[in-house]
C-alpha cells in the first residue's frame, strides 16, 4: 500500500505525522516540487481555482470518478432492503434460518390440519345430503304407515257383505290384524285409513272405525303381497271361514293396482318431541 508519503525523502513524516508542525520549513525544503512561498491552504485554493486541464488533473479525475462510482454503488447495494441480513453475523443468520425453518414447519402443520378439516367438512356435507335424502325417503315410508300420504301398489280387495247384520267390530279387527300379520302395508276400510292407532267399536247395527260410522258392505283395500294376503285370509279357521260362519259373504280379489287414498291428518304429539338421538 504505497501512497504519496512513501516517496523518498518523506519517510520521517509518515512515521511521525504529529511532528510536522514543529518543522515545516525543513520539510518543504526537502520537497523539490514545493513552491516555497505558498502555504498548504494557498496551494489548495490554487488547485481548485481556476480549473486547469492538465494531465495530472485529468488522471486524478478519472481515478476519483472510479472511487465515487464504487462508493455510490456500494452504498446503494448496502442500503437495499436485505441490508438487515447483510450485516448480520453468522450465528445470527443460522438462528434466523432455524427460526424460519420452525415457522415453515408450523405453518405446514397448520396447513395440513386445515386441509384435513376441509376434507372432513366436505365429506360431512356430502353425508348430510345423503342423510337428508334418506330422511325424506323414510318420511314417505312412515307417511304410508301413518296414513298421511296416499299409497298405491299391488294388493287385494276384500268385500264383506253383511245382509244379516251379524258382523261385529271384533271380526273386522281380526281381519285387519290378519292382514297386518300377512304383511299388509296400507289398509283402508270404506274410505277410512287404518293405521296403528285405529280402533273399532260396535254401534247399533254397524261398526265405527276411529269414530267414523261405516256400514256394510265393508270394502277393504289392502296393499301388500297378494300371494301372502289372500292365503292368510283363506286359511282354514281363518277370517273368511269365521265370517262365513256368521252368514256373511266374503269375496277376495287380487289386483295389480290398489290405490289407498284415504288420508289421515298428521297429529302432532302434545308432549313427545323428536329427539336427535
Amino acid at each position, binding site marked *: 500500500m504505497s501512497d*504519496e508519503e512513501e516517496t523518498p525523502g518523506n519517510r520521517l513524516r509518515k512515521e511521525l505525522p504529529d511532528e510536522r508542525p514543529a518543522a515545516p520549513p525543513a520539510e*518543504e525544503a526537502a*520537497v523539490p516540487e514545493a513552491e516555497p512561498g505558498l502555504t498548504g491552504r494557498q496551494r489548495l485554493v490554487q488547485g481548485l*481555482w481556476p480549473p486547469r486541464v492538465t494531465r495530472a*488533473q485529468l488522471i*486524478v479525475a478519472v481515478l476519483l470518478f472510479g*472511487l465515487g462510482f464504487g462508493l455510490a*454503488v*456500494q452504498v446503494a447495494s448496502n442500503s437495499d432492503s436485505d441490508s438487515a441480513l447483510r450485516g448480520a453475523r453468522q450465528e445470527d443468520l443460522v438462528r434466523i434460518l432455524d427460526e424460519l425453518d420452525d415457522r415453515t414447519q408450523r405453518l405446514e402443520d397448520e396447513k395440513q390440519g386445515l386441509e384435513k378439516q376441509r376434507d372432513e367438512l366436505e365429506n360431512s356435507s356430502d353425508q348430510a345430503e345423503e342423510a337428508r335424502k334418506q330422511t325424506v325417503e323414510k318420511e314417505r315410508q312412515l307417511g304410508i304407515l301413518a296414513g298421511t300420504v296416499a299409497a298405491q301398489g299391488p294388493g287385494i280387495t276384500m268385500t264383506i257383505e253383511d245382509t244379516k247384520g251379524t258382523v261385529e267390530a271384533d271380526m273386522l279387527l281380526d281381519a285387519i290384524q290378519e292382514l297386518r300379520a300377512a304383511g299388509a302395508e296400507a289398509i283402508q276400510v270404506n274410505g277410512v285409513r287404518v293405521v296403528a292407532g285405529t280402533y273399532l267399536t260396535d254401534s247399533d247395527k254397524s261398526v265405527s272405525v276411529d269414530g267414523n260410522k261405516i256400514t256394510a258392505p265393508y270394502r277393504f283395500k289392502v296393499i301388500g303381497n297378494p300371494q301372502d294376503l289372500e292365503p292368510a285370509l283363506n286359511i282354514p279357521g281363518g277370517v273368511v271361514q269365521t265370517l262365513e260362519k256368521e252368514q256373511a259373504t266374503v269375496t277376495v280379489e287380487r289386483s295389480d293396482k290398489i290405490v289407498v287414498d284415504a288420508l289421515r291428518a298428521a297429529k302432532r304429539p302434545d308432549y313427545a318431541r323428536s329427539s336427535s338421538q
Partner: protein
Amino acid sequence: MIAVLGLVVGVVAGLLVRPEVPAVVEPYLPIAVVAALDAVFGGLRAMLDGIFDDKVFVVSFLSNVVVAALIVFLGDKLGVGAQLSTGVVVVLGIRIFSNAAAIRRHVFRA
C-alpha cells in the same frame, strides 16, 4: 477542480446507474473503496504539502485497491476473510485519520 468534478460525477453516475454488483467482485468492493479513500487522502495531503505527483498518485491508488482486494481474497481462501478485512479497514482507517490530521493542520493551521 477537474478532479473534484470527477468525484462528483462518479457518485452521481453510481447512484443513477445503480449497476448490479457482480457476485465475484462483491466482497472486495467495500475494501477497495476504503483503500482508494486512503490513497485520495494521501494525495490530498501531498498536494497541500506541495509534493503531489500524479504518477505516484496513480500508482498508489491502484496498488492500494489491488492489495486490499488481494488481502481480502487471501483471507477468504484461508477462512479468515472477515477478520482480515476488519484488520485492513482498521489500518486504512488509522492512515486516513493521520492524513486527515495533516490536512487539517494545513487548512486550519490547528
